[in-house]
């Protein structure tokens, strides 16, 4: 049987530990470097599979930047009505 004194002591110890833990200071921000982007890494558009998204219409080879650029260039011509009507 645990005595009342021991219970009180254990409770006090627990409160002391919790209080000390609350006083601790942990890093809330990443190490700041002036003038450098430190956010998340962004995937480049051509690194996606052409069929990865439901709404993809253009065709390119995954990882091939030039094929993605060619797809966009050809799509860009849809904004050129001279190319569309002539």
């Amino acid at each position, binding site marked *: 049987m645990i005595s009342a004194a021991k219970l009180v002591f254990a409770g006090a110890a627990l409160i002391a530990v919790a209080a000390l833990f609350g006083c601790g200071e942990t890093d809330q921000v990443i190490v700041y470097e002036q003038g450098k982007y430190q956010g998340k*890494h962004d995937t480049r558009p051509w690194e996606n599979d052409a069929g990865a998204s439901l709404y993809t219409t*253009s065709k390119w080879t995954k990882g091939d930047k030039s094929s993605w650029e060619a797809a966009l260039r050809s*799509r860009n*011509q849809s*904004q050129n009505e*001279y190319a569309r009507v002539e």
Partner: protein
Amino acid sequence: MARMKFICDAERCIECNGCVTACKQENEVPWGVNRRRVVTINDGVPGEKSISVACMHCSDAPCMAVCPVDCFYKTEEGVVLHDKDMCIGCGYCFYACPFGAPQFPQAGAFGMRGKMDKCTFCAGGPEQDNSKEEFAKYGSNRLAQGKLPACAEMCSTKALLGGDGDVIADIFRNRALKRGKGAEVWGWGTAYGKPDKPQQQPPKGAKS
């Protein structure tokens, strides 16, 4: 590929606000935030001109320069994006931007300023491409779908052109040549042309 750019043909823009609507619909932009808007000069006066304005994805972006937490980055295609998880909503970018591109949601009591939101050139942000998280924070990632910005693609008169800077410059040049006017609105000559009256040189020894 050159940098991704927008160009708006003031001779063609009819102030229909189709680009604004297309942007809102594509990215599900919240109420009070306008990533794109149409500006009209001499509204109601014969000869009025309108242009559609959003983030111009500057080559030397002032928003990037002033951001105290450096949450901006530029993609290889020249699109200026930012990480909303890092943004502290200070509003410095709003004051630095000459186009009024950065927007701040005004939700909450006392006009609290939320995280900055701006045109992403329909290129999403630093989350997994075409994921729910990316859409919720930044909107649609059309570039990762092989498409171009919705505003430019939806423009009824094709006044707003968006895409590879070289390609859209060629489209605009061809258009201006065929119709025989409008070339003076944009271009090297307008930006850096020789003035009609040469500026008076300051006297030697004077403070600059």
